[in-house]
């Protein structure tokens, strides 16, 4: 599966997703500047991304923990997600995300 990621400079990257990995891990592995301070524990909100329209509906809804943690993210929008909580799968092939400002 492919992940299209826009970094904070507006540069587009096409990354190879890996089944079962989180999108945060793919972004970090791909060298994008994403803090992910807590390492994927849904405890810091520093892997915040915006999911492109059309894809947000295909994701499982936010858990209560993710919704709560997004309260600590900056510039939250309706399509905000924590990328450590999005798990790669074939169903998400082509998903487009934009790294949120820090």
């Amino acid at each position, binding site marked *: 599966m492919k992940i299209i990621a826009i970094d904070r400079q507006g540069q587009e990257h096409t990354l190879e997703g890996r089944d079962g990995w989180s999108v945060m891990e793919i972004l970090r592995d791909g060298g994008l500047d994403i803090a992910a301070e807590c390492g994927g524990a849904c*405890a810091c909100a520093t892997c915040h991304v915006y999911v492109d329209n059309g894809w947000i509906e295909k994701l499982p809804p936010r858990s209560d923990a993710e*919704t709560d943690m997004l*309260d600590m*993210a900056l510039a*939250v929008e309706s399509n905000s997600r924590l990328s450590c909580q999005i798990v790669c799968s074939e169903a998400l092939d082509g998903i487009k995300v934009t790294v949120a400002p820090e």
Partner: protein
Amino acid sequence: MSAPIETDVAIIGAGPIGLFAVFELGLLDLKCHLVDILDRPGGQCTELYPEKPIYDIPGLPIVTGQELTNRLLEQVKPFDPQFHFTEMAMALEKLGDGRWKLTSDAGTQLIAPVVVIAAGAGSFVPKRPPLAGIEQYERAGDGSGVNYAVRKMETFRGKNILIAGGGDSALDWTINLAPLAKSLTLVHHRDGFRAAQHSVNKMRELEAAGKIKFHVASVKALHGESGKLAGVTLSGPDKQEWHHETDVFLPFFGLTIKLGPIAEFGINLHENLIPVDTARYESPTPGIFAIGDINTYPGKLKLILSGFHEAALMAQAAFHIARPNEKLRFQYTTSSSSLQKKLGVA
């Protein structure tokens, strides 16, 4: 500025690795002072995941960040480490006698032959909203412009206050500042809060009584002149925008980690990490060691257990710098009565 404190080792960071360094150095009779920007020990373990279980600490099949910190504190207690909390290590300079002087933003001066940087990814600092020109309003001082903390409540008296956020800090300060504000408005991106329920209830009561205003909205822009905040642009759920006048804006979005002044210490960094050798865990500057997540070397793994190993080797090398005329006697805690005496068990 208080009088300089002389000690054997000045440690930057009181996270798990800084704490274990106290233990390894203590076994060699080296005394430690620790500086940490947080108000309590534990670093990321207690700030980010106090309740989350950690499964890869040798010998502890499951332990939370807070429990691990508590156990490390118990382990280092015999060595009586001195903590300087809510202080940021600001400057490091070499003295004429070869020792180091570490100065904190609170004016604490530590003089030691050895400095250990166990600062993780750096300092926890408030998250700063990505709004154009926010820096100019951050310098306005307590009670005006953009503030990330409430230091003196009195400075907020009679002010028009805007608070953003949905966590405990946002709600607690909404409740505490409401009685002395001229007006107080809370904005949050949703009509739901991660803060404690009793705080949310109290905020709703204040809103119902007309004492505060709450909007589901986000701050989109700041307005003012020559560093004096006059108002903000708010944006609601349907993207409609409106102007809101305010004297002070308090964004409460928790903490994030920035490297901070360590970058100015004159150590050659590699991608914000301190390169070290793997025999001593010393930086290219003799006498300055780096252990835990802040260091880098071939094969480095950012694991707590790696930091523990690094602390043990660092202590051996540090001993030779701090006690150049003494012979290091390597002993095991299981068999050495002198070590057991230090630990208070013999």
